[in-house]
């Protein structure tokens, strides 16, 4: 079943292993990358990769691909479903414009050379639903990040400085939700939303809890580190979508300064574009990207992802329920909201980014500024799908970051407001292919603590993408159209050693694994047993015994035990 592969004569770019456009062969056996001596070269299937770029499969570490948010989005927006991508046959029918069905999500990632994608916000009480949808996505490996920052247990333990209990709770919750790491969305602000409010600054008090976002974030970083999780706190900052918020973002980043970790960042700040606005109102809003970039580049314990908007349709869906209501008021668009037991909430609002709209153009420019100004081992490429737009346009972002010429061309069609409110036009930096591979492969894998992903070293998962692009001859600064086209559809996508897509056509439907993190041996769950009983009894609408997801219910779970 698992064939051996011999990928011959490809031009390899593998930043984790320091390989920059070297002609070499890659060997695959039993789903892993192996030494040449491990394979019987006569038996192995040969893939001729001459003059082609060979890289690790793409790793989308932050997208909203499964669970009640995207599904409510689909139910609310049937107009998103009229794009037919594939008629039912050997493969499932595949439809969707930006919002895609579950089969379409797997198929589109595969065609683009992406082999792993993580759902970035799992409502804990809805964990089973998120996993059902992850299980319905073919082709790729996946995981989900449960959301913690407004969960009453967290608010209570932080307020009481019960650190051991907080640590135990994180471990308990990750096990129950079959979750991967600690996502935090607008800490405290969503609880305030239950009273119609928000927490816009780090020192706003959370109603009913005598605790502030500053304390929540610090406490969660501390206990995530103490628990030894492979991924750091993954934070959607307070004050999102507000002019002037870049200061909140930098202030938030500074909370990480007293923590460090040899292997990875201690704080990942997500879709920073939405949190990088200077100015005092929508009239004088401007870019705060340069200041943020300066800070991120000056420290080595923070990573970010871009949250790049793509012109066209999108759907805003976040656990930041008060922000979503603000967006609804601002645009007058449809609005779904979901307050969720004692855990937080979420909201969903359709949007479209228009090039001539000054604010949208500004957002577009800020995303690019972040991508260009921040070191490539600190910034991951993302659109925060579907908040900034489709993940299928990652190649556009890649090409833009590599070509000033392309940016100049694009700047001509967007609102001139970006010229005075951002520094984009003046940025000469052009990312190299090596850096782009870093931002889409090795860095996201490192940020997530996945040692076997994002590279092509011996022992790595045989998740490989081959593109019709010769790194030795391509002029990425000038041939941006060729770059875009090459990254849109891989020549080959190999997942776990199997060819799943070729030249933009699906070859084989496979089912990837769902990773989850078990840190229960690093904490004493008994310490919170009676609290759990009490909170369930009083505040949940379901029994503790019926809360959570068992491994046996999942299609292909893979438990990662934290040592």
């Amino acid at each position, binding site marked *: 079943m698992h064939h051996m592969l011999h990928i011959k004569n490809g031009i390899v770019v593998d930043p984790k292993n320091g390989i920059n456009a070297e002609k070499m062969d890659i060997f695959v056996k039993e789903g892993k990358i192996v030494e040449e001596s491990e394979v019987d070269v006569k038996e192995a299937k040969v893939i001729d990769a001459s003059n082609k770029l060979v890289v690790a499969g793409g790793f989308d570490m932050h997208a909203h691909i499964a669970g*009640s948010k995207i599904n409510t989005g*689909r*139910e609310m927006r049937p107009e998103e479903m009229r794009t037919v991508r594939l008629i039912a046959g050997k493969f499932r029918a595949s439809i969707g414009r930006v919002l895609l069905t579950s089969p379409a999500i797997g198929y589109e990632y595969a065609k683009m050379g992406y082999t792993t994608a993580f759902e970035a916000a799992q409502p804990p009480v809805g964990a089973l639903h998120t996993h059902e949808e992850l299980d319905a996505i073919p082709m790729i490996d996946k995981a989900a990040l449960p959301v913690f920052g407004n969960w009453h247990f967290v608010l209570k333990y932080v307020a009481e400085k019960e650190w051991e209990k907080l640590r135990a709770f994180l471990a308990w919750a990750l096990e129950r939700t079959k979750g991967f790491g600690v996502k935090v969305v607008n800490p405290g602000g969503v609880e305030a939303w239950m009273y119609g409010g928000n927490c816009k600054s780090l020192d706003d008090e959370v109603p009913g809890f005598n605790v502030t976002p500053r304390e929540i974030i610090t406490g969660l970083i501390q206990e995530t580190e103490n628990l030894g999780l492979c991924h750091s706190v993954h934070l959607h900052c307070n004050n999102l979508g507000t002019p002037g918020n870049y200061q909140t973002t930098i202030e938030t980043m500074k909370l990480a300064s007293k923590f460090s970790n040899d292997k990875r960042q201690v704080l990942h700040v997500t879709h920073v574009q939405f949190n990088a606005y200077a100015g005092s109102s929508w009239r004088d809003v401007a870019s705060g990207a340069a200041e943020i970039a300066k800070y991120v580049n000056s420290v080595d314990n923070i990573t970010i992802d871009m949250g790049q908007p793509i012109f066209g349709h999108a759907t805003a869906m976040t656990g930041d329920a008060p922000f979503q209501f603000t967006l609804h008021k601002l645009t007058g668009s*449809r609005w779904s909201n979901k307050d969720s037991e004692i855990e937080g909430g979420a909201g969903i609002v359709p949007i479209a980014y228009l090039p001539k709209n000054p604010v949208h153009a500004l957002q577009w420019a800020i995303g690019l500024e972040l991508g260009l100004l921040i070191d490539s081992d600190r910034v991951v490429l993302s659109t925060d799908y579907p908040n900034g737009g489709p993940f299928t346009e990652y190649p556009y972002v890649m090409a833009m970051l590599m070509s000033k010429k392309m940016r100049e061309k694009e700047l001509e069609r967007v609102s001139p407001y970006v010229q005075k409110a951002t520094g984009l036009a003046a940025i000469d930096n052009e990312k190299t292919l090596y850096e782009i591979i870093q931002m889409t492969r090795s860095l996201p894998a490192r940020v997530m603590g996945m040692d076997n992903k994002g590279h092509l070293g011996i022992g790595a998962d045989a998740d490989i993408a081959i593109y019709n692009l010769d790194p030795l001859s391509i002029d990425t600064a000038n041939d941006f159209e060729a770059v875009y086209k090459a990254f849109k559809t891989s020549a080959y996508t190999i997942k776990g050693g199997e060819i799943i897509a070729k030249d933009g056509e699906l070859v084989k439907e496979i089912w990837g694994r769902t990773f989850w993190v078990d840190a229960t041996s690093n904490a004493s769950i008994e310490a919170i047993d009676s609290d759990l009983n009490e909170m369930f009894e009083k505040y949940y609408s379901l029994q503790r015994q019926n809360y959570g997801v068992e491994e046996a219910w999942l299609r292909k779970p893979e438990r990662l035990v934290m040592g």
Partner: protein
Amino acid sequence: MPETKEEELTNVICTFCGSVCDDVLFDVEKYKGKKFCKLGSAKFSKKERIKAPMIDGKEVSYEEAIEKAVEILLNAKRPLLYGWASTVNEAIRLGVILTEKVGGVYDQCASVCHAPGTLALIEEGVPGGSLGEVKNRADVVIFWGSNPMEAHPRHPVRYSVRAKGLLIKDRKDRKVVVVDVRKTKSANMADLFIQIKPGYDYPIISALRALVKGEEDAVPDEVGGVSKQQLKELAELMKNAKYGALLYGLGVTQSRGRDRNVENAIKLIQLLNRHTRWIIWPMRGHYNVVGAGDVPAWEVGYTYAIDFSRGYPRFSPGEFAANEVLQRGDCDAALIIASDPVAHFPKASVAHLKKIPVIQIDPFPNMTTLISKVVIPSAMAGLEAEGTAYRMDGIPFRVKKIIDTEYWSDEKILELMLEKVNEKLGLR
């Protein structure tokens, strides 16, 4: 016989109504539930079952029945696969894929009850919350055209009326309002009952919107049988709530205005959120009717009335809802699962059903059994089969299997059907 102690009973999750009570118990020895309401107890008690799979009334094996069912589905130009609200997500998923493969029409019970709420969601979105939030925070709860005492008997106790939580420590902390065209049982438990004229939901909601906005002059002295004074009091009550919940039922979706009523109510809730916090949510009927819409949404993009005759899904309630398809005579076979359209559909629909080959999958015999060519009995989810179900607020539960049975689960039946279909279509 002495009562068995609660500790010795098995926790189960009720698979009757959308409340999906997960605190109920079952005595396997006595085959009897505990803590259930009347509706739930009736389902969780010994009942008449379909004895064995049948073709034309003759008992056959599961394999034979499934073989025949597959033949019918594949020979049909456009089969209708309908029901789904009373089975688990795992079965629904297979059913959706099966419908896609055979180029049929997928429709589910919502199309005859809460679908107008779905249309309103498309127009406006839905500002909602989970039942735990209602329990914890709602100091004003309005049941509009819904009658929980009769349709969801334990809903009031567990979530919405007598339930206590974070901010609501006592029944007195919560004002309960019932708005309906007649004095229902639920009206008796309310602090305030407002009787409206049938078909006047829309103008009454409009009047409330005007009042909340402060446009009192726009409201006449009486709307739909309710005095302006009373409407003003209701509007004030809503504005002064800290966290309100409007829980609507079929009285809103199935009366004049239908989806427009819900849309209007959602606009009222949008407006109220500019003053305070409010949510709105439908009181969904069958225990997994939410799953019957959510599963196809992620698999094929839509929730009901989905046609696959072109090889990709198309959504059109006016064309592809079961009754539309049946009354147009636009399906030449049907698979009915966990539902009884013969008892509940209009005569014209039933007339067509009687003309075409019908496959039924159900644990229990009903009117539809009588007209079915192939009958496939199944295990009862929640007792004899496990699987995932979504409570009316979308919270997922894994309902349990605590009794062994010879009956196949819906999931197992559909799995084999799909396998056979794939085989015959050369997709394996």
